């Protein structure tokens, strides 16, 4: 029950609760309907009624009278049970749900879209996935992706490794879109996998008929069955409901707040296109094949890493603060080719002296950094700043956290950062890699 104070007192006068049919009488009008829950953070002078015609309205309880017509149950969302029979001809695909829009539904406690779905519900609302594979579902978390933390990456990596070890042919991770590219990068560094691991999500909630969740899931299961044994992100290619792009987990970024084709490969092309759960075209043959790699999990991570974006007017305090607070690594989102104002060199030098790893990427998002072109860049290098090349700031941030988990030695960390581990660094920039 989320009604508070006044509203609760009002409901108590007639001894009614959510789900009951009630009549509310006011001066010139009366309303009959089912009492619904109301957002916890709003006014306690209003209650919500669902009228017979299906409309909800909010009623101000001041000078209103309520009486019970008929008791009722609290409304619930139910799906028919589906019998899952295993088909030996089909691949075994595991869907791990971490939450997010793809596995969310209306929560009328708060009146907002909320991840309250279990992984099984996800399957029940998308039963056609069962035509594609033997699907098993596991709920790992139930969080919106803005609430993701590095320790969740660690746990997710562990769970996936365990499932792969027990023989699944592919893994789909249902994830919120906001930080999906952080998680995909983290899994890319942590996990060496003999089978595909595909992250997917939805931009438009599953409770609407136009949700992109269904097509994203179908194609993700398709990708999890495929030979492309990488950590990938599979989401709508365009605004059409048709194709999904399969992006390399380290070279992908959420580029739009709301469009369904928000995920784009950065400084890279998508590996492949999928439609109706089938591969429809492949852009590049340089991907890791199924069983090419042995299963290996290296999920040590240092979470005391910060991502700092420079801007005109930035002051040294920002760097100094992180040094004083004991951060082990700083990822700088510099301007252009990889710059900070030259008055910040002192602070960078101090950070370097205190054995804090500093990696530079660009806020341009596209293109590689190059700190040799301008004097500031050269000064930054001399002060110990490591080049993040063409890594996106997000991928480089995750990589720095992971590298610091591998070694405390600054030199070794530098080597790890500058070495291509999971396709995150493209030394060669193609003309096709921009705004696609």
């Amino acid at each position, binding site marked *: 029950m989320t009604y508070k104070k006044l509203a609760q007192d009002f409901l108590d006068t007639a001894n009614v609760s959510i789900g009951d049919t009630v009549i509310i009488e006011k001066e010139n009008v009366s309303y009959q309907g089912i009492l619904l829950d109301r957002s916890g953070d709003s006014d306690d002078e209003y209650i919500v009624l*669902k009228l017979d015609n299906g409309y*909800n309205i909010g*009623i101000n309880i001041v000078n209103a009278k309520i009486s019970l017509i008929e008791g009722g149950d609290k409304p619930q969302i*139910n799906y028919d049970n589906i019998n899952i029979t295993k088909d030996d001809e089909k691949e075994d695909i595991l869907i791990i749900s971490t939450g997010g829009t793809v596995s969310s539904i209306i929560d009328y406690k708060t009146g907002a879209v909320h991840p309250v779905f279990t992984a099984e519900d996800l399957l029940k609302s998308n039963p056609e996935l069962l035509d594609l594979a033997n699907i098993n579902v596991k709920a790992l978390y139930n969080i919106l992706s803005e609430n993701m933390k590095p320790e969740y990456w660690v746990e997710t990596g562990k769970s996936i490794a365990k499932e792969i070890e027990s023989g699944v042919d592919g893994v789909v991770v249902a994830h919120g879109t906001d930080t999906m590219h952080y998680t995909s990068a983290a899994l890319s560094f942590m996990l060496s996998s003999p089978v595909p691991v595909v992250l997917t999500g939805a931009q438009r909630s599953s*409770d609407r*008929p*136009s949700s992109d969740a269904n097509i994203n899931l179908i194609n993700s299961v398709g990708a999890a069955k495929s030979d492309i044994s990488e950590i990938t992100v599979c989401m709508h290619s*365009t605004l059409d*409901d048709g194709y999904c792009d399969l992006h390399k987990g380290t070279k992908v970024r959420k580029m739009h707040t709301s469009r369904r084709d928000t995920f784009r490969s950065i400084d890279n092309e998508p590996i492949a296109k999928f439609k109706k759960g089938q591969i429809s075209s492949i852009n590049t043959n340089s991907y890791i094949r199924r069983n090419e790699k042995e299963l290996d999990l290296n999920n040590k991570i240092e979470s005391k890493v910060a991502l700092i974006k420079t801007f005109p007017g930035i002051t040294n305090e920002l760097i100094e603060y992180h040094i004083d607070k004991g951060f082990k690594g700083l990822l700088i989102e510099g301007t252009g080719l990889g710059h900070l104002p030259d008055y910040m060199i002192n602070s960078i030098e101090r950070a370097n002296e205190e054995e804090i790893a500093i990696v530079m990427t660009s806020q341009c998002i596209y293109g590689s950094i190059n700190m040799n072109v301008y004097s500031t860049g050269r000064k930054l290098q001399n002060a110990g700043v490591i080049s993040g090349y063409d890594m996106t700031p997000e991928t480089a941030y995750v990589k720095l956290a992971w590298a610091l988990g591998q070694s405390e030695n600054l030199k070794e960390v530098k080597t790890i950062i500058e070495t291509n581990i999971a396709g995150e660094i493209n030394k060669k920039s193609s003309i096709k890699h921009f705004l696609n």
Partner: protein
Amino acid sequence: MNWNELGLKMGLEVHQQLNTKNKLFCPCPTELINEEVDTYIKRILRPTQSELGQIDRAALQESKRNLKFDYELYYNQTCLVETDDEPPHDLNEEALDLAITLASLLNMSIVDEVHTMRKQVIDGSNTGGFQRTSLIATSGHLETENGKVVIENLCLEEDAARRVNNDKISNDKIDNDKLDNEEKYTHFRLDRLGIPLVEITTDPSIHDPEQVKEVAYMIGQVLRSTNVKRGLGTIRQDLNISIAKGARVEIKGVQDLDLIPKMAELEVERQLNLVKIKEHLEKNNAEVLEKIHDLTELFANTSSKIIKSAETVKGIVLKGFNGIIGLEVQKGRRFGTELSSYAKKRGVSGIFHTDELPAYSIESNEVEKMKKHLNISPEDAIIIVAHDNDTATAALEEVIKRAKMAFDGVVEETRKALKEGTSEYMRPLPTSNRMYLETDIPLFKIDENKIIDIKNNLPELPEAKKERIIEKYNLSEDITIQLVRRQNVEEFEKIKSEVDIDSTVLGSFLAYNLRELKREGINTKIITTNDLITTFKLLEENKVSKDVIVDIIKEIAIRKDKKQDSQINPENIANDLNLLLLSEKNIANIIKNIVLKNEDMVKERQLGAMGPLMGMSMKQLKGKADGHIVNKILKEEINNLIK
């Protein structure tokens, strides 16, 4: 028909587009666009559960059709909100204010807090798979000549996308996209999606069709007193009808109010016939057999082109239905038509049944073969469908469903109004399960002061306006009705307040002359109130006669249209057209000349020459002199001569 005895109940739903600047949930314009579209997107829709845990039957029905949608859009006149790629913006308060205004005019109670709902509609007409709608007011009424009618609800909702037939362009696109080649798309244009709409619903218990017609007219009058869209397609009326023995049927898209009584009569007739069929079937112990038979082989040598071109022929047996299927339930529409309209929803063009066969080149021996093969008795009927296996099966499943419903008599349905007053099946009636909360839009509390403010500034209703104008300006009822209907009242009053001219001259100009100019093809829209004021001032100052006002206005419109004149000056125009009245001295000179020329006649007839000379003078002075003055001067000149 005796409506009371039949227990006729009717209700009306009126949908009216509002003439707001922006759409209900985004800043796009509210005009339809007929330019070439910029691009397309393709979508599919799936039904979902509402918050009460049910799937709506109408939504489920639509999803069975498994349609794919192609949305035409514009880069600048539509946005990501319409494509369902951006959450809706805040509720358009201009539209909300208009809804509150209308609710107040209909004596309704405004809700305390507006909750925007999603009404599931997955026929593709809404990109999100739902129409956003909110209940704004309830419990109103209108007084009609036949008594009080309750106005139940007023909702503010977004209009749906516009269905277009644009197969050519879209097929090009599909061809490029070979994988999609086999798929069928329904085309919509996003220009109409999101235009604010009010839905006004009456109580469904009106007993007299004439009263429904009257209410429809009155609601129309109320709507027109506010800022609503005008013209074709901006207002849509739906009719709810049931009789005591029948069931509620919603007839969508009633165009002509005068047709309402006829439609009621035809629907009552249909419901009565369906009840008769029910009784007949019960008496016959009729039964719908669910087995779908493959009859393809029986038609191996058929001469029927339709059958021959189909992959399969499938059939079902309806025991005890012989003679029923061919029964007329509504003018020109048989029970078979009802069955067939269900089948058509699965993509077939129609059905064949034994009540009409042999026909359509299906020979009697084929019919007999079929009857024998299916081993039916003379009381039974067969229905066949010729199409591919899946479509034919799906269509017959629908026929089975509908045939079974015949045992319930009348079925609750949404039907489409046809021109002659009959109707055709569209889909099952939607249930309240189709509604769930639109969580992207915050709840909107309606400020009491806003309501008070709106109620204090309500527009004048047309009837009240008419009476006031007649009274105040002593204008004829005819002219006033025209002014009210054409919304010229405000302009009339404005001009009257600025220029001292005769009400009837101004009134008939606005009511009739302007319309005539428009009919002549003159662009009357570019004539401003100010143009009219300056022109009528010439009349007030006796610089022109009232007969040439139309000519001056016409010339103003022509010049403005051609953008010839940046500074429109009616007096200059009157001068250019040689329409300015002459001074008395000039008039006197001209008349003196005429009198002298006719000296003999004047001398002979004396004042008796007034008639002919008046005619000559007016002819020569056409439009440039007032008759009174001409008359006066002429008399003086004649008297001068004969003295």
